[in-house]
């Protein structure tokens, strides 16, 4: 759970950085998109292989993450046969409480996201294009698409908020009250960074600050 979670957070940071290349214009972004699918690690491995190795690695991380989550969830359900008539929450945060159903929503929207931009089968505005730049402009020119995306990124960042802290605690880094404060602070910082980093580009497209 912790290790695969941290891999996924690392991917999110990289993805966020990549999205910001939209601000550098069509040529730069499309070149970056081509490079991702093209000659990374070439000539060590043949051209075009890296993206598939990387996809296999990400799928493995996601599958193992979901497997761990389902195991934890089913153990928790089995260990809680009767609910309390009254239950008061003292320590749990909203993000900690919503890790499981939040994760389900997040995964569902991830499938839509891949269908939209990777498979190019669920585009809501404009045709499938060889230019990733044009597709991104097309999709985020629709106000409700930006809204859906904004809500999706909220679920992602809430998941990261509890997940980052929890991953480090599982790996043994919660050594004192101060360590707890630092880890939770880092979790907040990374979650906010991801939110801002992922949202400025679609908002800029929506308001026409980035155009084709």
């Amino acid at each position: 759970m912790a290790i695969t979670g941290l891999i996924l957070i690392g991917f999110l940071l990289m993805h966020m950085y990549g999205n910001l290349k939209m601000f550098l214009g069509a040529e730069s972004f499309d070149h970056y998109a081509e490079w991702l699918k093209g000659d990374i690690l070439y000539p060590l491995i043949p051209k075009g292989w890296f993206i598939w190795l990387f996809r296999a690695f990400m799928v493995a991380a996601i599958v193992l993450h979901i497997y761990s989550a389902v195991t934890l969830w089913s153990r928790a359900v089995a260990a809680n046969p009767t609910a309390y008539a009254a239950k008061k929450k003292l320590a749990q945060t909203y993000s900690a409480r919503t890790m499981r159903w939040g994760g389900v929503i997040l995964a569902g929207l991830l499938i839509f996201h891949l269908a939209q931009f990777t498979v190019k089968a669920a585009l809501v505005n404009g045709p499938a294009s060889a230019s990733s730049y044009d597709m991104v402009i097309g999709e985020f020119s629709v106000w409700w698409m930006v809204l859906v995306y904004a809500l999706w990124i909220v679920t992602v960042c809430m998941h990261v908020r509890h997940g980052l802290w929890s991953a480090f605690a599982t790996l043994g880094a919660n050594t004192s009250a101060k360590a707890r404060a630092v880890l939770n602070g880092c979790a907040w910082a990374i979650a906010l960074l991801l939110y801002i980093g992922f949202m400025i580009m679609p908002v800029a497209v929506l308001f026409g600050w980035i155009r084709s």
Partner: protein
Amino acid sequence: MNITLRIWRQANASAEGRMVTYQVQDVSADMSFLEMLDLLNEDLTLKGEEPVAFDHDCREGICGMCGVVINGTAHGRGESPVPTTTCQLHMRSFEDGATIDVEPWRAGPFPVIKDLAVDRSAFDRIIQAGGFISANTGAAPEAHAAPVGKLQADRAFDAATCIGCGACVAACPNSSAMLFTAAKITHLAMLPQGQPERYSRIKTMIAVHDEEGFGGCTNIGECAEVCPKQIPFDTISQLNRDLIASLFKKDGK
């Protein structure tokens, strides 16, 4: 004070349980919560009804026998800044005329025996799996023979204050007994006497913890909030460190 109680009544382990409402009159604010239940039971006995079964022993907060969920928090800590056991909770914490929900610890591995009393022998089995040291018996060794650093000793002692009441399990949304297990692990891991079995102990104790049907820890933190002995939340990370280290130890030694 006059108090309305909604108490979980369950005749035995296999019977259906339900919340039953009782009125308790003339409660003194200086009574402990358990004394208030005694008052209710006297009244029920005089009426010829079955008194409410609940566990208790020392009534001074050190034995770990008592424990019920009061208004949704284990031991009834509520909003108070001071963690407490049920026996050390006093009626002055409640307002006159209050309605109080009283329920047993709810977790699969803690089956209800009757009313508010639950079977916590799952904890005993976790301890039997490794919560001890194997030492040759004989005369007590001279204390200075095995020096322990101050910080280590403090940490061991903080963890050793666990009374095994089960509030951590009752409060945990996953019904995990990780704080309890971590307290025992940390207690022995900090002391020289605990070293020979340090990395085999953790594997056997965690295995029994899982076999008993407790859930897994997801670092939510409810356990440490209700712990009457304030077992630090970071003992769980100590447990995780030792567990990770144990994976690289031959034969778990």
